[in-house]
């Protein structure tokens, strides 16, 4: 392991030692309860047997990388991309892995610091110039009563095109996961990133994702968040290059006592950049969801276009959804907007559907399904749509059948 990577680990360890444990006193953690003590949890011992394929993985066909409890257990070649463990890379790829690892601030929060300090391994995915490639990653947390730190570092070379799909999953039983995804998109390159998290009921996951987008490069992101006692996503996108853009469409559905927490920072630094964030969430039972989105437009980011929209459907009296969109605009040559709403199923569409002969519960299912369709339509990897739709509608149908609504 090269000196840069070692330095990053030290910086992570220092930050971990000095930063406070997340509590609701800290702005970043205002709305969530971490549910475990980072000082008193063991790092997962690797070597557990991987989980069998679930519906989402089966729909994806080939899996190129399997990460279990933070260790890369298997990887196979993908056309147009290099895939390698951090521990196996050297030369140019080692430098790339180190540079990508440097992407995240070690002091972003205590868990990202822990990931830097204690992550056992990582995988580098390098989509090479002029190629079009498709990579599927299956990230699993198997060991119980422990924390793991899966880490993916991705480089899309200039004028390369990468479709990357990452599935996050685990079984029942308590465990913590701190997944990290660092992506650098070169000039004129394109990435289509789809993430689907279906963590088990007692998994507490706090994911960090960071994308840095180069000149005239585009990122299309689709995020699906369905699982976990805590499912948190801390996403930061830096539109560094002139003419760069990001489109993000996300959906989440929380039930029982789940907390789904989305923190998004979209930073416009280059000129003529654009972002469009569209997130839809539903909550039922006692679940809660939080969306905190910040659009930050830097001083020189002229001709910026930035929009964020967050729609929430609250399906039970005790469920909660919070939406906190923010703008921080330091440049006056911009078009920006944000919109958010929290509400129940609308009565007029329900009346219309029922007037054609759908019983109320059937009409409600059709509406819940319809609520998410416009997000599903936009997921860069359409092969996950059918199983994700099943999971989403399944949550609602189960609650209906058990009389939980």
């Amino acid at each position, binding site marked *: 392991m090269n000196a840069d990577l070692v330095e990053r680990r030290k910086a992570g360890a220092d930050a971990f030692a000095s930063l406070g444990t997340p509590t609701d006193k800290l702005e970043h953690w205002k709305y969530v309860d971490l549910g475990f003590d980072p000082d008193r949890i063991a790092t997962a011992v690797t070597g557990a047997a991987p989980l069998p394929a679930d519906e989402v993985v089966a729909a994806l066909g080939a899996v190129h990388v399997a990460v279990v409890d933070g260790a890369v257990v298997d990887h196979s070649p993908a056309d147009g991309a290099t895939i390698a463990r951090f521990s196996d890379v050297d030369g140019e790829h080692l430098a790339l892995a180190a540079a990508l690892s440097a992407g995240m601030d070690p002091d972003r929060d205590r868990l990202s610091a822990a990931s830097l300090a204690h992550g056992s391994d990582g995988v580098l995915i390098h989509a090479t110039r002029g190629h079009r490639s498709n990579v599927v990653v299956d990230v699993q947390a198997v060991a119980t009563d422990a924390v793991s730190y899966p880490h993916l570092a991705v480089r899309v070379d200039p004028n390369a095109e990468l479709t990357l799909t990452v599935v996050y999953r685990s079984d029942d039983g308590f465990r913590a996961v701190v997944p990290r995804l660092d992506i650098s998109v070169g000039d004129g390159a394109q990435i289509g990133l789809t993430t689907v998290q279906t963590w088990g009921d007692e998994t507490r996951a706090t994911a960090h994702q960071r994308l840095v987008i180069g000149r005239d490069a585009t990122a299309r992101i689709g995020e699906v968040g369905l699982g976990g006692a805590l499912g948190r996503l801390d996403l930061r996108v830096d539109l560094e290059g002139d003419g760069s853009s990001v489109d993000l469409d996300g959906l989440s559905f929380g039930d029982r006592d789940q907390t789904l927490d989305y923190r998004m920072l979209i930073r416009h630094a280059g000129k003529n950049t654009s972002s469009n964030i569209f997130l839809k969430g539903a909550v039922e039972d006692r679940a809660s969801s939080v969306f905190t989105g910040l659009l930050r437009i830097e001083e020189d980011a002229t001709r910026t276009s930035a929009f964020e929209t967050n729609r929430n459907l609250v399906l039970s009296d005790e469920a909660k959804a919070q939406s906190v969109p923010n703008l921080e605009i330091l440049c006056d040559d911009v078009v920006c907007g944000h919109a958010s709403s929290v509400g129940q199923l609308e009565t007029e569409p329900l*009346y*219309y*559907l029922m*007037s*054609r*002969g*759908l019983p109320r519960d059937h009409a409600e299912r059709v509406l819940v399904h*319809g*609520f998410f*369709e416009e997000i599903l339509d936009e997921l860069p990897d359409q092969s996950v749509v059918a199983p994700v739709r099943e999971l989403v509608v399944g949550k609602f149908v189960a609650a209906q059948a058990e009389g939980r609504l």
Partner: protein
Amino acid sequence: MSIALEIKGLTASVGTVEILKGVDLDVPFGEVHALMGPNGSGKSTLCHVLTGKSDYEVGGSARLDGTELLGKEVDERAALGLMQAFQYPVEIPGVRLEEFMREVGVARGEDPGAFGEQIAAQAERFGVTDFLRRSINDDLSGGEKKRSEMFQMGVLSPKVAVLDEIDSGLDIDAVRQVAEAVEQLRSPDVGILVITHYSRILGHMAVDKVHVMMQGRIVDSGGAELADELEDGGYDAVRSRLGIEAPKKEAAAPSVRDTLTDLPF
């Protein structure tokens, strides 16, 4: 039983405002009736009371092929064979028209294959094939929305079809198309009630009877000559013939739109 829709002494109020004050109206199978009346006379309220919208306190009776509708859920009324074509069909993003019709087929226990063919055939017939893959009423013009409603009637084959203000907001060509669609729906197995406040659309279709509604009651019924009288002399002519005092200020009934709780999804 030859009466498709039999309404007797139907009343409806919202809070202390009485909108329908005892409506009596029969539509036999195989006939097309027109219900006309000035704004605020209660025509749309009648539609929604029949369909089963929960905003109203209702009394009296409304029978479909002999079965009482009042007190039943909206979907139960539809299952009995009632369908309203809405004045303002709501847009439902994310729910595709074809998929919606298929779900209704499932709820009715239809054979999926045969029902799918029925959907395709009726879409062709009413010229809505392009809308099938789109969200319900999403981005459709006024005329297109009405065609979509007619298409749904074609698929669902109701025993009683109530068409609320089917000509509102349409240009002259669209009015004719809607009138032709109504003519296509006419059959011995259905009674059709067309609601309008202009007689224009009646020039494009044959109606068996015209009813005039004012202040929450049917005040006159007759043949096509009644529509001609309205065309020539307006509602005032009917009022003066019947000795009804024109209200100083016709209190507008609370419209469907006003009762919407708009959530911006």
